[in-house]
């Protein structure tokens, strides 16, 4: 024990005196921190901030593991320093444990240092699970220190160690997700990444920082990192060499692979289950939802009261919620640490809500009998809704419980699409004019721009063929409906998912309703009908930042609701064009 303490103390002193350590542990990550912090707009998004913090921590962990642990152990052997210890009555254990421990203790202040800077400079809140983060990073440092020691154990010279370290360092840094978002990489590369410890360390840190998960929820990466450290320690004791002259057999280098065993196991499991690929999607989405936005100089249809409109104002969106509304001239986006959406001449509305659709019906004909394809079709339908500015739908549950699963996926952020509310619409709640129109043989909906955009050409063909067999009936003029929450009954024949709500609004206005009332039907009243009052359907502080921004003034001309400029879903600026992409 005395030997361990003395050795650790000495290594610590030497490490602190080493300017390279200062450089690699603090200065270089700090430069990256500032550069990327500014570049990523870290101050406008807690997600981006978390990404920057994770990146510099990852740089630090890999640096201290490979260069601080691996290279230094090799250098000490080469210089004949270890030889001097060899004549003293100690085993390799204190030297190895000393290296692990020193790496850890020197790195901990780095973590705190960067969290403090993130707080002071970019206003990142103190992480909910700071302690969990520290434990996760600690496990990471120890595991990578261990990997460094194993490298030192199997290489025969500094030159060899350089080669091995570069071979491992770069892929681990690039594929971890810390530098390049994993979800933009090709699938096969994402699968490769699942075999790397750095990827799991990154996921662990991100889960804790962004998704506010606890350590227990990340037990897999944690255990794998700890196992890596233990295996590395055992193997380095076994392979330890005191002198440059003791050359290892080439085959012994394969021990290096032994240390990666826990992650090979995880990688194989992930290749099979793809869990982490989903997690990656979720993380990316969580980060986008964390962005701070200032929607500037827009007309705001608040959905509150009797349909209150702010003719010129700004909406501040933060952490997925509406933080504040400013009437009149807009505040400075920079001082609010927000990204600006310049919206003069545009109108911000709460996201539209359709209180009654049949998600499991295709809107074109018979439902697909194949369960997998059914899931895909319904997934696409939710995308189509969101594309059209419909941010929530209520659907009757389907027998296969696919809608329930999709509800979970959208909620978790695994996929993009309209929020799913499961339930039956009350029988006397409202009426669908667009359905009545369709039944009357009026198929204008199929000519709408949005319909052309969201319905696949083949399905559109089918729809047109169906429409041709249902010609207009004479004398069937729809009656003026009582005002009520918006419903379309999309999914029934002739009513494809997504665009129908806009035609419904046009029909209601055409039947004599005021645009303001129709908009209320599609927002606040619809929200009330589906039990989401206050959360959805209104623009007020505390409500969910699920918004639709259209070009023009729908209060004067209801058809402008189709001229969608942007959709925000729980704070995320939706990439509309990606929604309709064929998912593999």
């Amino acid at each position, binding site marked *: 024990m*005395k*030997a361990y*303490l*003395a*050795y650790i*103390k*000495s290594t610590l*002193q*030497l490490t602190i*005196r*080493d300017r390279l350590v200062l450089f690699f542990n603090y200065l270089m990550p700090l430069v990256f921190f500032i550069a990327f912090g500014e570049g990523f707009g870290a101050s406008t998004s807690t997600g981006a901030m978390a990404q920057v913090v994770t990146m510099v921590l990852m740089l630090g962990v890999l640096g201290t593991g490979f260069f601080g642990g691996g290279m230094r152990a090799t250098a*000490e052997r080469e*210089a*004949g*320093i270890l*030889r*001097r*210890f*060899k*004549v*003293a*009555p*100690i085993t390799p254990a204190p030297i190895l444990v000393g290296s692990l421990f020193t790496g850890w203790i020197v790195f901990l202040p780095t973590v705190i240092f960067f969290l403090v800077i993130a707080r002071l400079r970019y206003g990142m809140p103190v992480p909910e699970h700071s302690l969990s983060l520290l434990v996760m990073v600690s496990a990471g440092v120890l595991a990578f220190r261990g990997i460094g020691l194993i490298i030192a154990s199997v290489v025969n010279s500094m030159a060899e160690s350089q080669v091995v370290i570069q071979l491992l360092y770069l892929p681990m840094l690039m594929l971890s997700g810390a530098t390049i978002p994993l979800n933009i990489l090709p699938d096969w590369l994402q699968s490769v990444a699942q075999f790397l410890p750095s990827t799991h360390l990154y996921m662990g840190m991100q889960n804790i920082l962004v998704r506010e998960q606890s350590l227990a929820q990340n037990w897999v990466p944690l255990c794998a990192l700890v196992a890596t450290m233990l295996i590395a320690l055992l193997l380095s004791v076994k392979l330890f060499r*005191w002198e440059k002259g003791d050359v290892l057999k080439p085959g012994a280098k394969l021990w290096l692979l032994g240390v990666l065993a826990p992650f090979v196991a995880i990688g194989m499991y992930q290749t099979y289950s793809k869990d982490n690929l989903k997690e990656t999607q979720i993380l990316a989405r969580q980060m986008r939802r964390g962005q701070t936005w200032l929607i500037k100089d827009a007309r705001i249809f608040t959905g509150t009261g009797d349909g209150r409109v702010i003719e010129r104002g700004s909406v501040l969106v933060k952490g997925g919620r509406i933080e504040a509304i400013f009437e009149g001239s807009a505040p400075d986006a920079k001082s609010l640490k927000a990204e600006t959406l310049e919206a003069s001449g545009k109108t911000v509305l709460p996201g539209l809500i359709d209180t009654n659709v049949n998600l499991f019906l295709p809107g074109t004909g018979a439902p697909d009998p194949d369960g997998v394809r059914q899931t895909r079709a319904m997934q696409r339908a939710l995308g189509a809704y969101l594309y059209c500015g419909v941010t929530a739908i209520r659907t009757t549950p389907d027998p296969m419980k696919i809608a329930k699963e999709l509800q979970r996926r959208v909620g978790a952020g695994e996929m993009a699409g309209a929020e799913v509310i499961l339930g039956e619409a009350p029988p006397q709640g409202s009426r669908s004019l667009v359905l009545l129109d369709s039944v009357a043989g009026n198929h204008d909906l199929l000519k709408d721009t949005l319909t052309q955009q969201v319905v696949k050409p083949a399905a559109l063909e089918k729809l047109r063929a169906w429409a041709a067999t249902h010609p207009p009936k004479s004398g069937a003029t729809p009656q003026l409906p009582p005002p009520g929450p918006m419903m379309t009954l999309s999914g029934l024949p002739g009513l494809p998912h997504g665009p129908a709500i806009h035609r419904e609004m046009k029909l209601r206005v055409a039947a004599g309703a005021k645009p303001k009332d129709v908009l209320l039907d599609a927002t606040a009243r619809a929200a009330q009908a589906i039990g989401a009052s206050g959360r959805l359907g209104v623009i007020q502080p505390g409500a969910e930042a699920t918004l639709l921004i259209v070009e023009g003034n729908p209060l004067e001309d209801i058809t402008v609701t189709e001229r969608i400029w942007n959709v925000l879903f729980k704070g995320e600026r939706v990439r509309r064009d990606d929604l309709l992409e064929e998912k593999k």
Partner: protein
Amino acid sequence: MSAAAISVAGLTKSYGDFQAVRGIDFEVAQGEVFGLLGPNGAGKTTTVEILEGLRPRTSGDVKVLGFDPAADTLAVKERIGVSLQSTRLPEKMKVHEAVELFAALYAKSVEPNALLKRLQLWDKRAAFYSTLSGGQKQRLAIALALVNDPQVVFLDEPSTGLDPQVRLEIHSLIEEMRDQKRTILLTTHYIEEAERLCHRVAIVDEGKIIAIGSPRELQQRVLGHARVEITTVEPLDGVPPEPYTPAFSADRRHMTVSVEKPARAVVDLVKWLDSQGAELDDLHIKRPTLEDVFLELTGKKLRD
């Protein structure tokens, strides 16, 4: 238990096809300073490192303080002090830190400050290793060898590469250790060092001991005789009595006599000079050096 601190019998060590040590036997008594003298590559360092427990041996019996260094490595390391031929410390390690660190590695250790003072490193205690001179580094190496108050000290080439002044300093340090009755095994290729410091010397060449004994014994065994050289003020006429058979210089002022017992011879010869009425100008006793011994035994010089 034998009184020998170190005993080596039939020791061999091969590296692949190369036989570095080819059957070495010797014993070192408690309190003895024993030198292994030989050129580079003779197998001295290999032998010493086997004794220190740093290397396994190929065959033979080895005991250090009654322990087998290959089997009871830690027990041996605990009790010995070692100054290695080639070793370094981290550049940014301070002198006192090095001593304290190594002191902590042993079950028993001396007080670091006293050790630093004794080795005249006190003024340099806060200096980084990289700033030390060659002599200071060597003194530190010896300090580290003494940090556990060892019964046996191994000094591998303790003065190699040092300038003569510093070498003398190191020699007096070793003499001090000798006076403290420590057992010392010293390897060197400096003759003067072996002659000055060692009770006994083994001459090693090509992995074998070719001669062993005190420096004096070795000299006598090899050449048998010392030489007495006498210079007189005036040329000499007579010839000294039996058994002395001198050789004279051309001017007969210099007389060289080979003798077995130089002390007896000096007394006899000075008496004879007196009886001749000759005035003594100078008198030397010349012994054969280990260099001569080495040359005689191996046919080669110790240093190239």
